[in-house]
Each structure stands twice: as structure tokens, then as C-alpha cells.
């Protein structure tokens, strides 16, 4: 939609600031303070305003939004769990490069994976008038309270001319004014497990992340869908939950070997977890891929440095970051009628040298264990 032209003035049918005030039972001044976040307001008043904004689907008019946009800084806040992970570091690199190109500044904040800390950081960035706040990484799927709070933050950021951008995590809902940049996580896992099954593997140990963590669960869902399509039973002892670290991969692998679990391949939920599997395999005198095939996920540089080089799923992390910054800088989200942005990047399997056919493909259907 373009700006209204003389003689074709769009009748103002949407809710106004006064409507929000009436709905919330507060003065227009209070509503204005909450939306602009330029004056202390009680928590309950803020809550009532945000409820009214949601219920009326209120969005500030173009003029007000342009003013708000003038007030927003040219800073992108990029919030991640930990700067040491290669995949999110690649995304941060994409954000920085694009931001620099556009003359914006990027700031990095870390949460150590703590959802409360993340909410606090988003709130802080809002108060600092960040031009956009980008969050990357999966979430715990059962955290309803967290979701509700983040939804409110998304609305208040948007109302203030800023934007919440979610990278590699599920949308908060169609009615939430935020940008979502996803990659086809489930299909990547499906393709990778199909690759292992096609090579004749039937017992694949899946080293997942935390239970109910969205990224891990999408990968597990793709893995299970492939098993089901190939008519391979999904054995519960072949799924181990851990975290996305090298140490976790090492320990899970050792546990599975100690328990005498029978498997010919390991699907590690990330490349870093796969590195831990390599370490444990070496200790047990298992050769990859001769004795054991191993695959990872993410295609970070590590995948090329492991020996044998790791077969994995490519996730375009740098592109995710770059796109997040593009959407943030672009003023599309300041236009009236903007209801959100959703991008989906594809993933694909990169075949290297860590997979081979199991010695006797059909034997694994039998009773080796």
C-alpha cells in the first residue's frame, strides 16, 4: 500500500489511540506513554494497554509511525545464547555485514540460554530504542508464559517503530507483527535420514538436544517421518537426549555403547555433537565410516575439518543473519497494513566421507543385539 494521495484519502476506519484508551479505561496520555515507552507507567496499566492494542488490533497511523521511526536508532540488537557456537556466529556475521553495508550498527547480547534473560534483554533493547531486535535459536515448546511475554514485546516494539525478528525459531502466530526467518529444518533431517536408510542402515542412533526444544524436535520429527516412510520401526532406545555440545555427544555415545545398544549409524543433532561422537568412537576403537557411519547437522566449518569429513545438512546461517538485517533496515514494516514477514530458506544434505553402507545391510534387521 502506498501513501494516500490528495482526493483519495482513505477513510480512517481503524481504531485510534483514543479507542485504545477507552478500551483500556485509561487516558490517551497513558496509552501514548506506554506505546512510546518514554515515561514510567505501572505494570498493570501497561498490561491493560497492551491487551487493548491486541484486542483492537491497533496500529499507530503512518504519521505517528513515521515519527516513531525517526525516533528509532539505526542499531540492530542481535541476541543469541552464546557467542562461542559456530552456527550462530555465522548468523551474527551475516547481520554485521549487512548492517555495516546499510550504515547501521549491530550490537550483540547473550542469554546463556536463559529465557528470562532473553526477555530482559529484549526489553532493555526496546528501552534503548534499538531499530530492530533479532533473536536466533530454538525455544522450549512448553513455555507458554515466555511466549506470551515475547508476543507483547513484539507488539510494543512494532508500535514503537521497531521490529522483532525471529531467526530459526517458530512464529509467535499470524497476528503478531514480527518477522520470522526460518530454514527447512524438518525436511533437512528427513533428507539426511533417508540418505542413511538408502545406504542400508536400519538402526540409527539419534542424539537429540533437550526434550521439547524446538530445533531438536523438528530434526527428530524429520528423522521419524523418514523412518516411517521406509517402514523402519522407531525404537525408543535409539533416541538419546542431551545438549548441543561436543561433551554431550561424547557422553551420549559412550552411554549407548556401554548399554550395548545395537546401531550402525549415528545422527547427531548438530555437527558439534558429531565431533563428540568421533572422539568417543576413537576411544572405543571404532572406525568411521567402516564400523560406524556418522552424520551431523548445520554444515559449520568443523564439518570439513573432522576426519573423515562429515556428511551433514547445510543451513544457510549467514544468509539468515543477512536477511534479518535487511528486513530490519527496510521500512516495509513501518507501512500501514503490514502484518508480518515470513521467509523460509531451504536446506540440503552435503555428502562427504562419513557414511558408508553397513557391512551386511540386511543383518541389522536380525538379532545382532
Amino acid at each position, binding site marked *: 500500500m502506498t501513501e494516500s494521495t490528495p482526493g483519495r484519502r482513505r477513510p480512517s476506519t481503524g481504531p485510534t489511540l483514543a479507542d485504545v484508551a477507552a478500551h483500556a479505561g485509561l487516558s490517551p496520555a497513558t496509552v501514548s506513554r506506554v506505546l512510546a515507552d518514554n515515561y514510567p507507567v505501572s505494570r498493570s496499566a501497561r498490561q491493560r494497554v497492551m491487551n487493548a492494542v491486541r484486542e483492537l488490533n491497533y496500529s499507530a497511523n503512518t504519521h505517528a509511525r513515521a515519527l516513531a521511526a525517526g525516533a528509532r536508532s539505526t542499531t540492530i540488537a542481535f541476541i543469541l545464547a552464546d557467542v562461542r557456537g559456530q552456527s550462530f556466529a555465522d548468523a551474527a556475521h551475516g547481520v554485521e555485514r549487512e548492517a555495516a553495508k546499510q550504515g547501521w550498527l549491530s550490537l550483540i547480547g547473550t542469554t546463556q540460554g536463559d529465557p528470562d534473560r532473553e526477555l530482559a534483554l529484549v526489553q532493555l533493547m526496546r528501552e534503548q530504542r534499538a531499530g530492530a531486535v533479532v533473536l536466533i535459536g530454538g525455544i522450549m515448546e512448553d513455555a507458554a508464559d515466555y511466549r506470551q511475554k515475547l508476543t507483547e514485546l513484539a507488539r510494543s516494539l512494532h508500535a514503537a517503530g521497531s521490529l522483532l525478528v525471529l531467526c530459526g525459531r517458530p512464529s509467535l502466530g499470524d497476528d503478531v507483527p514480527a518477522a520470522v526467518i526460518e530454514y527447512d529444518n524438518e525436511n533437512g533431517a*528427513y*533428507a*539426511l535420514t*533417508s*540418505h542413511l536408510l*538408502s*545406504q*542400508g542402515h536400519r538402526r540409527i542412533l539419534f542424539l537429540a538436544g533437550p526434550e521439547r526444544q524446538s530445533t531438536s524436535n523438528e530434526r527428530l520429527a524429520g528423522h521419524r517421518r*523418514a523412518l516411517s*516412510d*521406509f517402514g523402519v520401526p522407531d525404537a525408543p532406545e535409539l533416541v538419546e537426549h542431551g545438549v548441543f555440545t561436543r561433551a554431550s555427544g561424547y557422553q551420549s555415545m559412550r552411554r549407548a555403547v556401554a548399554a550395548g545398544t545395537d546401531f550402525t549409524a549415528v545422527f547427531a543433532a548438530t555437527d558439534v555433537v558429531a565431533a563428540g561422537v568421533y572422539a568417543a568412537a576413537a576411544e572405543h576403537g571404532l572406525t568411521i565410516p567402516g564400523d560406524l557411519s556418522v552424520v551431523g547437522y548445520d554444515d559449520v566449518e568443523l564439518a*570439513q575439518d573432522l576426519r573423515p569429513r562429515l*556428511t551433514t545438512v*547445510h543451513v544457510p546461517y549467514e544468509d539468515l543473519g543477512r536477511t534479518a538485517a535487511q528486513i530490519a533496515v527496510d521500512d516495509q514494516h513501518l507501512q500501514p497494513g503490514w502484518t508480518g514477514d515470513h521467509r523460509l530458506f*531451504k*536446506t*540440503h*544434505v*552435503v*555428502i*562427504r566421507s562419513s557414511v558408508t*553402507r553397513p557391512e551386511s*545391510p540386511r543383518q541389522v534387521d536380525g538379532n545382532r543385539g
Partner: protein
Amino acid sequence: MDANSTVKLIAGVLAVVLVGGGLRTEAHVRRMAEIAHSLDRAGSRLVLCGRPPIGADVPATVVEYDNEGGAFAVTDYLISLGHRRIAFVGAGEPEHTTTGARLSGFLDAHATRGLEVDQELVVSGNYDRESGYRQTKMLLDRGAGMTAVVAVTDVVASGVLAALRDAGVRVPEDVSVVGYDDIPLSGDLDLTTVHLPHEELGRAAVRLALHRDEYALDQHLMLGTHVVIRSSTAKRES
């Protein structure tokens, strides 16, 4: 194609991307290598997309897909459904890299299971729908007795399906059919096939070619393929 004039034609171009398979003949490979060297001297780059490398010393970016692995997988899938007489339609040009790799995967899947391939069931033809139709009709007329068909591409498979339908042969009850490529048509036909990451092949090719220094360690990439199971295949009742 004359290497020097080709290079002149594309002077100033950042990269030249060749999409799809090519001939494996010695003369062709040698000429490709010359072109790669000429481009390299001109500061440009030859990119092979969906085609195997032409030699370790040749300066080229290669983004290929696991062509043979996909053919192996889909053939193995048919064998696992109980099929033993499986035809391969479209083996006309085995020196073409794409045909050659798909045929190898087909043969290898049989060998791995210790099964003999009846050479009568490996029939010629190119990548046309018409060719798939003709070759299938010939197999039926000959009474070849196949219970499944691997078509070299989805387009060829569409011809196979048409020939079977015209002859009153039911798919998948009487004969199972698989294609290769997973083009949109295969969804419309409900055809079991092998998925290629088409879009990613192109993306990766451009990314690696334009950022050669950044991706210096990864100038040869092999992307995965996988079987997409739809309803043109069924268990062989014995």
C-alpha cells in the same frame, strides 16, 4: 565449441555455469579442461553444476549431487518391496554422465543384493516422454515380464505411465514405476521418485564461484538426493 572464442565471448563475466550432465568422452573432457584453464587465466571461473569433476588439476568449481546414490536408493527400495524383474528405461547414452551414474546405481543395487540383472530389461532411449512411451511399449510387446520400471527421469516416467495405461496395465498393482528428479510433474502424477535439491545446486554454485577465496577448501561439493515415496509403487505379491 572453440575454447578461445568462447572465452572472448564471455570476457568480463565473473563465472560461467554449466548446468546438467555432459559427455564423458575423452575429447569432451579435454576440451572442457582447456576452457576451464582459459577462463581461469582471464580471471573468470568455470562452474559445473550437476556434473562430476573433470580432473583434480582443473580450476573449476563443482557442485554435483549424488546421482548414483539416488538411483541405488530407489532401486533398492523396489527390491525391498519384493520386485526382482525391474526394467531400466532410458539407457541410450551411457557416456552421458547423468545417464551413466543412474544406470550404475541401478546395477549396483542389484549387485549388492546378489541379484542378476536381465540385460533384456535395460533398454535404450533418451530423456523424452515419447522415448519412455516407445521403450515401454516395446517391453510389453516383447513380453519382458517386468514388475517394476526405473525411468531415467520423471519426464520419461510420464511416458512409461502412458504406455502402461494404454496397454491396460495397472500402476502400481501390476507394475510399479519410479522416476528421477522430483520435478513438479511427479507430484501431479503421484510418482515415486528421487529428489534433487535443484534450487540449492544453483545457489551453492554461485556462492562458491563468486567467493572462491572464502570457500577455497570447499570448491567441490556433493549434495544429497533421497527417495520420495508416493503411490506409483507397491509391494510385489509373491
